[in-house]
């Protein structure tokens, strides 16, 4: 797929889109639950009526590493449970949700502009991959630029396409909360992922929890409610057993690092390593595919 800039928009060329009128076979019946269902939608990628049941994951565009990690793991687990993940292609939580789902299953991105307008433009690769492996949906004619008011309006479609909406991290006035309101308005379940009470992007989910949203601490919480059985594995909690022949330094680091990120400095002081042992051990685990290092030198266990 090729992209070109045009008048502030980034247009995808050669998108194989189709227009679906309300009442057509592919038109999702779930949209009829909305007070104002769109008369026609534009779709690219897989047929919407053949996609599995869906869950929406939405949240802030500026997550912390915790938010990104949790979103990816949740989306991964949903995909493994055979559920489609719906989100809005935005930065942060949305992108993590799409990426996590694409690993094991499928995903739908509801676009704020026309079907061929890639917004944000830095998500060209993600846009292309979703068009191939999942589906893109838009309610505006091709070429429609994104505008502020279209984002919140678009959120009602995300809420309607999904059986349940999960809010991961969101600020006080986040668009994710508008998605949750739309979901409640049409009687869908809303879940919130609890976060660190000290940070601003936890305010949104905690507000929802206070108002009666169900807590989401694993994919099973959501899947159970919508009647889908959870696959036995989970990307969120399950960790592989360290092999018996692993050198003790490496094993002790693995024992320290769970799925949350931990700083290299903390690992070093907890394990009692000097600089060169710490450097060597971390590299060996990295080479073995056990851990990954993120920005700021933090360490995360991969398996």
């Amino acid at each position, binding site marked *: 797929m090729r992209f070109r800039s045009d008048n502030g928009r980034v247009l995808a060329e050669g998108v194989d889109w189709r227009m679906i009128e309300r009442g057509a076979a592919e038109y999702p019946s779930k949209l009829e639950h909305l007070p104002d269902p769109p008369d026609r939608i534009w779709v690219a990628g897989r047929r919407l009526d053949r996609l599995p049941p869906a869950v929406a994951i939405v949240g802030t565009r500026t997550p*912390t590493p915790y938010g990104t990690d949790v979103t990816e793991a949740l989306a991964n687990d949903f995909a493994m449970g055979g559920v489609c993940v719906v989100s809005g292609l935005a930065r942060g939580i949305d992108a993590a949700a799409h990426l996590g789902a694409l690993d094991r299953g499928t995903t739908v991105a509801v676009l704020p502009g026309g079907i061929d307008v890639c917004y944000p433009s830095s998500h060209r690769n993600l846009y292309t991959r979703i068009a191939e492996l999942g589906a893109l949906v838009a309610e505006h004619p091709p070429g429609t630029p994104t505008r502020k008011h279209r984002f919140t309006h678009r959120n009602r479609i995300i809420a309607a396409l999904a059986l349940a909406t999960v809010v991961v991290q969101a600020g006080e006035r986040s668009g994710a909360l508008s998605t949750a309101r739309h979901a409640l308005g049409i009687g869908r379940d809303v879940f919130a992922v609890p976060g660190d009470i000290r940070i601003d992007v936890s305010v949104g989910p905690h507000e929802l929890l206070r108002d009666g949203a169900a807590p989401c601490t694993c994919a099973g919480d959501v899947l159970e409610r919508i009647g889908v059985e959870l696959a036995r594995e989970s990307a969120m909690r399950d960790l592989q057993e360290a092999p018996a022949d692993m050198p003790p330094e490496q094993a002790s680091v693995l024992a320290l690092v769970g799925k949350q990120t931990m700083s290299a400095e903390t690992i070093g002081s907890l394990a009692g390593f000097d600089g060169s042992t710490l450097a060597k051990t971390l590299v060996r685990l990295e080479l073995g595919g056990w851990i990954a290092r993120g920005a*700021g030198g933090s360490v995360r266990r991969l398996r």
Partner: protein
Amino acid sequence: MSVAKAETVAIVGLDGYPVEVEVALASGLPQFTLVGLPDASIQEARERVRAAVLSSNERWPMQRITVNLSPAHLRKAGPGFDLAIALGVLAADGRIAQERLREMCLLGELSLDGTIRRVRGALASAMAASQAGKRAILLPRANATEATLVGGIDVLPVDHLAQAVRFLRGECTLDGVAEGAAEPPAPVEDDDADLTDVRGQTLPKQALELAAAGGHNLLLRGSPGGGKTMLARRLRGILPPLTHKEALEVTRIYSVAGLLPEDAGLITQRPIRAPHLSVSTAGLIGGGSLVPQPGEVSLAHRGVLFLDEAAEFKRDALQALRGPLEEGTVTIVRGRWAVTYPARFQLVAATNPCPCGYLGDALRSCKCVPGRLATYEERLSGPVMDRIDLQVEVERLKKKELFLHAPGASSAVVRERVIAARGRQADRLATFGIQINADIPTASLEQAVAADASAKRALERSVDQLGLSARGVHRVMRVARTVADIAGDDVVTHDHVESALLFRFDPKK
């Protein structure tokens, strides 16, 4: 008509060139002319010299005075010629003996009351005078100590023009400053910047030691307030002390730049320079309107150049670092003048992980737009990044955590290891004509690093597993060589490679 000659020195770049001051007194209307490519600052000498002579209770010849500075092709600047001109005029007037004057080199700026003021570049001037075969150099007292660093020439400090005149008439003697007076007893310890002050930061300290031992340029990456500056300041304390030759080079640069403290002799501590991110290209590499002055890269010669917030520096300024980083010298061209200054420094660059500084922070979300993130990284790429071998993440520790960590090795202990490792490198690398692992050219890596089969396997694995680029592999090889040199091992094994890999620096192109 009577003619007299006096000798002084002109500084171009770091070098002094002997200059002859010829003074001719002829009959005619009283007039004072200066010729021989003097710049505006020397033209002003006429006023200073006349006032200073009169203040010294000497007669000013009421004749037509012509002063010629030769060789005429050499551009001359600065007030250091005042003393030679004044004494030349007095000699031409028959007030002092010519023979006495010709034996020595004269240096000094005059104030209107005849006091002799300190000049720049006295060390380089004394060197030039010594080479030109002068027996003595007459110069301002404040410059005496640095001049004694040059052997084989008598250093005669003077305070006032009248005193110089009396001395040349043989009416008084001057106390020469003994040679070697400037030699320091021992290298000074950097007391306020020891490694033990840095709690925690195990990995950054490890990287700092590798950087010092192998001469590798280092990139520190981390959130604001994490201690990047604190770490960078401690690099010089673990570098080997300056050799006498290196110390002379550094002192000469500071002398020419006019940055030598008064009465200071040899600079024995490696310099550390930390220019602000708003520094201009000329300020960084050297420049100036008339005679190019040394820039930060030269002032950091044999020391450390620390660029905090490196990605925020002007693009041109960063680009201009390419030459010095590769050649160890910098050549500045201004009009007809090309001046070369030494600039062999070790670079420590520090940067935030992203423009807002909080990418990857556990408790603050990063508010940077991804587009800006990419440009931020790009600004760091290019010539400077090509010469950086090591990268380390500096974590922001909480105050409480700081007390959990025992103080680590002191700078002195680490320095011993660094000195030993440098010695091993110098022996091994002598055949390649270099001294430190950071300078191993890519073509000689295979031969100079001496990696065994296990090391090569580890490198191959890092290409597959970590996506290391070819250039990244070369960097890791150099650093692994340094790891082995610190350990005292001749052959680089997988163990050394793995110790180096955590600090890999591999910017995506």
